[in-house]
């Protein structure tokens, strides 16, 4: 593969496009709602009405508006249809001629779409994620070509550093700094690992990126490998994401066939071989040292850091570990420059962040917004508030490691520092909206049950402390707790946070601490209360 070939593929792909395009979302949400049958019906309908000459039906990645799926978009008219059933295919085809159509219409200019700034999701809902040609036609792999031929590894790292990109897995460590450390670490053999073990319940950004644009992640990993001097990579994906695994596996073999992965990429001396590793159901494997253990075929138990994986990681070799969304940012940054990227966002949090907006919210789905946008803008403007119009009570960010932010703080801008100051974390991007019907102590117990079940059992404070905290929360929810129990709960939060070995334990108390901080009255109301817990929240 050389540049001419790459351009030829892109040109051919563009030339074979038809004037009218019916794009059908085939990502998990829509997939599970019957999108595949819908796509078949649309294809059959187009053929049956003799329009195959100028109409194409394409399966595309996630459009983001998952709560309204299956979604269908017609281009170039930019018509959006929601909740489409397979039997409505003829009506959609009829709509091509401006005919009457009773299929539910969406508004592509709705703030849910209009307020977004797609950078990593730019191809999501646009290209067919199962075809490398579609990615190449959208400019894919041209950046890798340019990097391998015209940019030195040090320059790549410099670009990433100057872009201000920070890890999108949650902690927000400066990506450029991490790359520089791995590049500097001595060693013949180095690895690049993509962390796709998106374990936070309520988060599905990485799944969506992998399902919608797998090559974007692969290209980002290849650039990273070039920059740090690695030749082998692993993509660790949750076993719960079979569709993402399938598309990723297919993407890797396509890239290999086109000489874009493996040996002598773009006929240069650069080799980069990448393998998928499938997780087997362990939240703790999102922690980087546990993830390494899992790739090595062992129990996913973390080990104390330092040494950090950048110095001693996979099989003791320097290893760069970044999250899916982080890698998805690489191509756009190199393509358009660090300055462009650094111009987006806030002083210390640059670029965009993808969030999964779920829970008691009208517009459920995936959004990509610039850093610095306020929680209120996300929840009220994009999200449209609660489905029944009642006030939002709080939003949970960061999953089991994060916290609940009350409505009174919704003017908080979304950036790493502000969310931390509000007692939560950016996390990987889950945002679960809660309304008045949500009992915050129950939510805290829910997360503690999660951490307790997911504790690997290696260190004492996390292994036993989470069980004791859960026990106390259980007593609270059941109205059997005394004020001494509450004191003990808070003390345990501190101990588990300070003494645990890895991030899972260190952050396990966060949901308790943040709900105690903002909703202490709900805890107090449960003390020695004779009645049982508030009823399970309902829709």
């Amino acid at each position: 593969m050389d540049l001419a070939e790459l351009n030829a593929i892109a040109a051919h792909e563009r030339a074979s496009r038809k004037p009218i395009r019916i794009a059908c979302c085939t990502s998990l949400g829509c997939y599970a709602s019957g999108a595949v049958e819908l796509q078949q019906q649309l294809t059959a309908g187009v053929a049956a009405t003799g329009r195959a000459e100028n109409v194409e039906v394409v399966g595309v990645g996630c459009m983001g508006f998952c709560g309204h799926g299956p979604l269908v978009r017609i281009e170039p008219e930019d018509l959006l249809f929601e909740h489409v059933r397979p039997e409505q295919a003829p009506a959609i085809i009829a709509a091509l001629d401006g005919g009457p159509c009773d299929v539910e219409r969406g508004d592509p200019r709705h703030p849910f779409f209009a307020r977004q700034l797609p950078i990593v999701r730019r191809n999501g809902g646009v290209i067919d994620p199962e075809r490398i040609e579609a990615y190449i036609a959208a400019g894919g792999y041209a950046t890798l070509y340019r990097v391998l031929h015209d940019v030195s590894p040090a320059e790549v790292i410099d670009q990433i550093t100057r872009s201000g990109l920070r890890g999108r897995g949650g902690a927000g460590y400066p990506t450029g700094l991490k790359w520089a450390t791995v590049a500097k670490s001595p060693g013949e053999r180095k690895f690049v690992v993509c962390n796709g073990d998106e374990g936070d319940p309520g988060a599905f950004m990485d799944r969506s990126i992998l399902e919608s644009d797998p090559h974007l992640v692969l290209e980002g990993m290849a650039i990273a490998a070039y920059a740090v001097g690695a030749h082998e990579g692993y993509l660790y994906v949750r076993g719960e994401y079979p569709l993402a695994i399938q598309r990723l596996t297919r993407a890797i073999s396509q890239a290999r066939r086109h000489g874009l992965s493996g040996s002598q990429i773009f006929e240069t001396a650069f080799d980069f071989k990448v393998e998928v590793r499938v997780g087997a159901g362990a939240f703790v494997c999102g922690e980087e040292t546990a993830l390494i253990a899992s790739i090595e075929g062992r129990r996913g138990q973390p080990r104390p850091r330092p040494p950090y994986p950048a110095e001693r990681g996979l099989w003791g070799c320097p290893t760069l570990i970044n999250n899916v969304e982080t890698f998805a940012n690489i191509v756009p940054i190199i393509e358009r420059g660090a300055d462009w990227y650094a111009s987006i966002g806030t002083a210390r949090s640059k670029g965009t962040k993808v969030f999964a907006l779920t829970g008691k919210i009208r517009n459920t789905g995936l959004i990509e917004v610039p850093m610095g946008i306020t929680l209120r803008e996300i929840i009220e403007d994009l999200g449209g508030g609660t489905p029944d119009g009642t006030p939002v009570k709080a939003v949970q960010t960061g999953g089991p490691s994060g916290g609940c932010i009350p409505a009174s703080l919704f003017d908080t801008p979304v950036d790493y520092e502000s969310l931390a100051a509000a007692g939560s974390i950016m996390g990987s991007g889950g945002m679960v909206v809660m309304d008045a019907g949500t009992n915050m102590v129950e939510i805290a117990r829910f997360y503690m049950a999660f951490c307790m079940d997911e504790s690997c059992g290696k260190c004492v404070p996390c292994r036993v402390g989470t069980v004791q905290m859960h026990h106390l929360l259980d007593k609270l929810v059941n109205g059997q707790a005394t004020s001494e129990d509450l004191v003990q709960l808070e003390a345990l939060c501190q101990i588990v946070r300070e003494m645990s070995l890895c991030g899972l334990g260190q952050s396990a108390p966060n949901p308790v601490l943040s709900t105690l901080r903002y909703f202490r009255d709900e805890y107090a109301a449960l003390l020695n209360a004779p009645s049982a817990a508030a009823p399970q929240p309902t829709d």
Partner: protein
Amino acid sequence: MAGALPRAAPAQEQDLAAPTVDNRQKILQATMRRHQYRPDALIEVLHKAQELYGYLSPTLLATVAHDLHLPPSRVYGVATFYHFFSLAPQGAHTCTVCLGTACYVKGAAALLAALEAETGLKAGSTSADGQLSLLTARCLGACGIAPAVVLDGLVIGHADAATLRARLHALLAQPPLAEEHHGSR
């Protein structure tokens, strides 16, 4: 409305043929060979073994340990660490309720309670006749269509108790599946 998901196992290479009782051992051997019997392939191999046999029997674990030159206790330690691996046969049908945050906030716990009441099973257990396993999942990432339930690999979004009850009845009303469909002993 539901779509079937691909199987939750590494699909790196196409297997030559659909697995039958006879060639499962061959397929497993081929998987190990493909990984050059490297110990670090243990989790990949266990994924494949479970996919082929339905669960990881002691014999199967012993074979894997032997062929990958791993201590049996390490194989057992790994197999019991990860939630995906099951050391006991699963039911002919499985019903998995997602208990992720988004589903929880939308009433997944009540949904699970309804299913437990309906089936008489506790979450994580299999009916005595081996027909149904009632399971829970951490988060399927299907938060956009919460609450989500997976019935025999079919994801059902915006699930409600009445619909699920009906679908379960329909599933269980089918003639019982033969033993080899859900792993042999």
